[in-house]
């Protein structure tokens, strides 16, 4: 939906071939019985994309595909092994060296478990006021308190005063996640990474949180990276979707396009396995043989080849590049 707008503006976030490798200290036993010493874990293995202002990019994939590591790299909770991240054209590395506080203000993260996000000893008021004070917003605590009350009321936490004196454990998961989103958005960051923000919450309240996240992001024209394993939810909130497998993006494109017309065999399998709540609809899930592999011993050639239903002998020999199919569609498969 933001295609026309995006052409005019410079990307807020540009990620160029970032990699994050970890070295394993323990010996690693591969599935075929070999023992590797100091094995390299290719958590994120060459990811590139751009994100425009106000755009929502959904990142989906199985656990262990590197989507959370990608999120942590984007907000610089970890440094990439190689590659670079540009925020509004400036290197994130430089930005963080020059002014760490300002960098944190422009990139924010929303975590999965809101109960782990906050210090349990701090009241909600302290959580907010401290953040505002750190970033020098508002002249005194009275003014800051006013800002906080206004913000709380705007997301339906009413009466706001009653929330200020409470502690995180006194709130429900949904309320606390709302506060977590609010705290991130309050600083008007240009990039927000939300790592599975609703998977801890009950289905009955998920919709509210998703809607709130979407509307606040659009309101402030904030770019959002939405990391999730839930394809339906990701499609609902995202403008574009990137599908990750073993640390790499295998398919990327407009959300509806990827969801209704998947091209990569892995995306096809993922989407066919996404069950409907209508018991009348029959779906035929594509089966993938084998276990999801660990990113330790990445197969040569296409990393999906060992499980791919349409792989030929060439697939396991020739490495695949993410190819541009026009209209923002990228697919990493030689068969397409």
């Amino acid at each position, binding site marked *: 939906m933001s295609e026309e707008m995006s052409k005019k503006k410079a990307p807020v976030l540009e990620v160029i071939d970032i990699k994050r490798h970890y070295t394993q200290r323990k010996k690693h*036993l591969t599935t075929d019985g070999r023992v590797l010493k100091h094995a390299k874990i290719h958590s994120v293995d060459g990811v590139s994309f751009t994100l425009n202002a106000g755009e929502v990019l959904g990142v989906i994939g*199985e*656990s262990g595909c590197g989507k959370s590591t990608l999120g942590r790299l984007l907000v610089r909770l970890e440094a990439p092994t190689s590659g670079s991240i540009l925020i509004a054209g400036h290197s994130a590395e430089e930005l963080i060296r020059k002014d760490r506080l300002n960098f944190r203000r422009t990139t924010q993260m929303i975590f999965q478990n809101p109960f782990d996000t906050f210090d349990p000893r701090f009241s909600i008021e302290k959580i907010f006021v401290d953040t505002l004070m750190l970033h020098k917003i508002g002249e005194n605590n009275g003014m800051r308190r006013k800002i906080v009350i206004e913000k709380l009321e705007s997301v339906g936490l009413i009466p706001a005063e009653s929330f200020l004196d409470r502690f995180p454990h006194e709130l*429900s998961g*949904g309320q606390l996640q709302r506060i977590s989103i609010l705290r991130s958005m309050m600083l008007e960051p240009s990039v927000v990474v939300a790592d599975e923000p609703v998977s801890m919450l*009950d*289905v*009955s*309240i*998920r*919709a*509210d949180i*998703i*809607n709130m996240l979407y509307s606040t992001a659009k309101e402030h024209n904030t770019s959002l990276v939405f990391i999730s*394993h*839930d*394809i*339906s*939810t990701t*499609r*609902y909130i995202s403008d574009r979707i990137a599908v990750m497998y073993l640390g790499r993006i295998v398919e990327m494109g407009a959300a*509806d396009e990827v*969801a*209704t017309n998947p091209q990569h065999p892995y995306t096809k*399998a*993922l*989407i066919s*396995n*996404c*069950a*409907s*709540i*209508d*018991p*009348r*609809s029959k*779906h035929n*899930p594509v*089966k*993938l043989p084998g*276990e*999801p592999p*660990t990113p330790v011993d990445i197969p040569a050639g296409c990393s999906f080849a060992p499980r791919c239903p349409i792989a030929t002998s060439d697939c396991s020999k020739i490495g695949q590049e993410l190819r541009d199919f026009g209209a923002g569609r990228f697919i990493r498969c030689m068969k397409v």
Partner: protein
Amino acid sequence: MALLSIRDLSVTYHSGTRHVKALNSLTLDINEGESLGIVGESGSGKTTFIMAILRLLPKGSAEITGEAFLNGKELISLKQEELSKMRWEEMALVFQKSMNALSPVHKIGALMSDIYRIHKPEVSKRDARRRIEELLELVNLPARVYDLYPHELSGGMMQRVSIALSLMFNPKLLILDEATTALDVVTQTQILEEIVALEEKLGITRMMITHDMSVVASTCKNVAVLYAGCLLETGLTQDVLVEPLHPYTQGLIKSFPVFDNDTHQPLQSIGGSLPDLSSPPPGCIFEPRCVKACDICRESMPRLKEYGQGRFAACHLAGGEINV
């Protein structure tokens, strides 16, 4: 005949001066060979219910009343020795986090043969191993898993081990407590398919606790909707999920993102949160969050009424008896 019939089962947790009624007069039947999905948000009493019939609740603080018959035997008043025999052999449970359910310091084989030989002490080690390798094969695991530790397996493999463990004595009743929730979609569908196939092969009755409605839609014949310890609606999955009678079920379905839906219909939540069960509302338990609530809902808790074959709902407004 019903394999498992629950009659007026209630569980109250006592802590200090607070008495929390986590399960409120649940009455439910599961026929042999059928599958029942129990859905509801967290705190609705799903886990309390199965822990009560398996008698795994702490004795001091949890008070259980009512009856639960498995194959004619009453579980709540059963003696401890008889109960131990029934566990695994007649009813088996697969937990959500198998990584926590399996001992980290024992090999899979040692763990499984331990359980096998407690129930069948006369069996030799070699026979036990043969049976366990059979079980592992049944859930599509290689035999080498026998000599591995849990940490050497992936989440999906561990879940398969837990399922193999639960099938050891061909139990009549298999209970899955969010057994596939932590898994990836691809692995989840595969494991669910395997379970459904095994069920037909071995004649197992399955009871499945989940908050994922799509899992129920694709694998369960019947569904029961729990809310705050009360059964609000039950019936065939194809009826309940397509034409829900209870406003809570309707809300749950509306808040679930539908993938096939091309029109971007906004998702709707159910406002509010679970009531405090130590002082529940005087009328319908769902009334404070219900969009359709009217005067009668604030006065009395509706009873379960039958609407067609095996279809029950507890709502004053269901079936259009009182129009608003």
